[in-house]
């Protein structure tokens, strides 16, 4: 018994057209939401149309966007990575420990290089751990990444003894506060990361295989796809990008608080990916959609904060957006 949509007929083609229109509509949905948000802000938020506002938002959105790109890849394999925020905390806690160490004070440039490379490396190892659990032990992604979701932040706090580390290190802070052509450094970084991963998804074998694994794992395996390597790959990428995001947060604040870096980032990233059109059951990886999603999430946050709404209410609003976005996505599927 086959379902009726498979019958080759003029109608089925019109169905295809329908599906396409839907998709276009929902892609526009994201843009419409963005336009509405901008409009509302222009009308009600004081000083919204100022360069400073743009910079603040770019530097805030960068971390969400970077993590969302990794999350998009993981979700595309029908997985999920709840550990992104915790991995950010680990990376963010490590960096000051390194560049504030005696060794780094003695060798400033090597110290700076290490304080960027080592945290990212550690993040990659966390991703490898997640990936191996998922790919080789067959642990459900939610559970596998839940381990770091909780214990990762604990590790970060153990590393720093729960202390807030403040510092003044212009070299390192460039990651968070530097500008290129007048725009924040991390804005450019997001752009580079997005373009690179868009290329990976749409133009490379690895990207195609990510989508195949998420779209139909058995079929992927039968066509010679190294399913396990692909899965490990996306978790490693996701963790690596989270590590970078952790460094940015620390650099922006010139302070590292293991309890707060990347707190609830997994939600922002999942929301951004879903708002951007990533299907939770896998097989789709719209990288620029995720960036758009991140911008929307950030703007909502900004709108609420700039208009004096309390942090905790913003939490509730974000929960609402996530539910709504997934709901809309479910509706489109049917």
């Amino acid at each position: 018994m086959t379902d009726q949509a498979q019958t080759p007929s003029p109608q089925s083609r019109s169905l295809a057209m329908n599906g396409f229109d839907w998709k276009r509509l929902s892609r526009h949905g994201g843009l419409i939401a963005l336009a509405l948000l901008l409009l509302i802000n222009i009308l009600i938020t004081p000083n919204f149309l100022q360069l400073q506002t743009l910079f603040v938002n770019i530097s805030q959105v960068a971390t969400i966007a970077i993590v969302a790109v990794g999350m998009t890849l993981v979700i595309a394999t029908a997985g999920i990575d709840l550990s992104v925020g915790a991995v950010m905390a680990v990376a963010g806690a490590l960096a000051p420990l390194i560049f504030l160490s005696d060794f780094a004070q003695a060798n400033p440039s090597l110290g700076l290089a290490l304080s960027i490379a080592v945290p990212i490396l550690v993040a990659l190892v966390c991703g490898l751990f997640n990936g191996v659990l998922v790919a080789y032990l067959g642990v459900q992604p939610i559970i596998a990444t839940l381990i770091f979701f909780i214990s990762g932040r604990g590790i970060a706090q153990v590393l720093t003894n729960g202390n807030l580390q403040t510092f003044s290190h212009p070299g390192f802070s460039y990651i968070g506060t530097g500008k290129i052509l007048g725009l924040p450094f991390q804005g450019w970084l997001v752009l580079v990361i997005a373009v690179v991963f868009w290329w990976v998804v749409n133009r490379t074998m690895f990207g195609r295989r990510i989508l195949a694994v998420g779209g139909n794992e058995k079929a992927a395996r039968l066509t010679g796809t190294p399913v396990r390597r692909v899965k490990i790959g996306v978790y490693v990428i996701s963790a690596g990008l989270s590590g970078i995001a952790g460094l940015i947060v620390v650099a922006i604040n010139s302070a590292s608080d293991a309890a707060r870096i990347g707190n609830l980032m997994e939600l922002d990233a999942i929301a951004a990916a879903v708002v951007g059109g990533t299907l939770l059951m896998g097989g789709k990886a719209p990288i620029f959609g995720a960036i758009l999603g991140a911008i929307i999430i950030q703007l909502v946050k900004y709108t609420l904060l700039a208009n004096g709404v309390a942090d905790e209410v913003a939490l509730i609003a974000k929960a609402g957006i996530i539910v709504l976005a997934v709901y809309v996505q479910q509706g489109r599927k049917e």
Partner: protein
Amino acid sequence: MLDTNAFDLRKYLQGNGQSVGVWIALVAMILFGALRYDNFTGAYNISSFLNYNSMFIAISLGMCFVIMTGGIDLSVGSVVAFTSVCVAYLSPYGIQVALPGGILAGMAIGALNAFFVIKMRIPPFIATLATMLGAKGGALVISGRQTISVDWGSNFTKFGMGNVGGLLPWSIIVVMVLAVGLWVVLEKTSIGRTVEAIGGGEDATRMMGLPVDRAKAFVYILSGGCAGLAGVILASGFGAGQPLEGVGWELSAIASVVVGGTLLTGGLGSVPATVAGALLLGLVFNILNFENGRGVISFSAYWQMVVRGMFLFVVILLQSRFSRAAAKQGA
């Protein structure tokens, strides 16, 4: 074909595997503690251990039911915090109002989860992640980010601090009654059978004409209610509603359920083994605390989270080894 695997896994886990393993581990740890530490079997330690862990047993029981349907409830930790604040406000009216009030508050959030999952068809982990945020936000809003002191004049704190015979706290008695009730529900009623059937195959269960949606609503509301009960115990035992408590508790609950032998993919579950799993995890912390007291290790509060994660990791490793061994047997 696959079914033979599933069957052998069940036999392995229930017959001679994990379920028995968890009881053996429990007994072994109690023996270890009793022999190594002077005050381990003292009334104070037993009573405070049971009091504290009654909260974890409660949320693990709810989680066990949710996981049996193939779902997950990540909101329990936030719900505990939320209800602890709610009941702190209710405490002047006494425990007879605060206890049902707290449970109802938890059930309300559970109902929201159920609505998201069943009616809006949002995957459970997203839905409950969202309510996790929402409940956390809610707790902070109504508490004004403060811990809310309870009314010490009413009988409210008797519940969380009082005990029977200096040994059995009221909280654990209530939770054990709940556990027995849920065990009966699971084994003896059709809603319980439906819950387990859903985990074995939701579509099949629906095709058989079983009330799938009702059973799913039941488990999420139950889980919320259990978290609500834990919230009451928290507020009454510590004398305050604590909006920032409960972080990572969902992990403890999941770990307890898994160590109790419930398949994470749903289908098989055991109420007694879940209770044992929660006690086991509690004992790990209890023993670490004793070691800490002896100065053997230095155990900062931050380690708690790390230990929870490692514990879950070990359980997962064991379970995947068990399932592999079982799969081998099945072949």
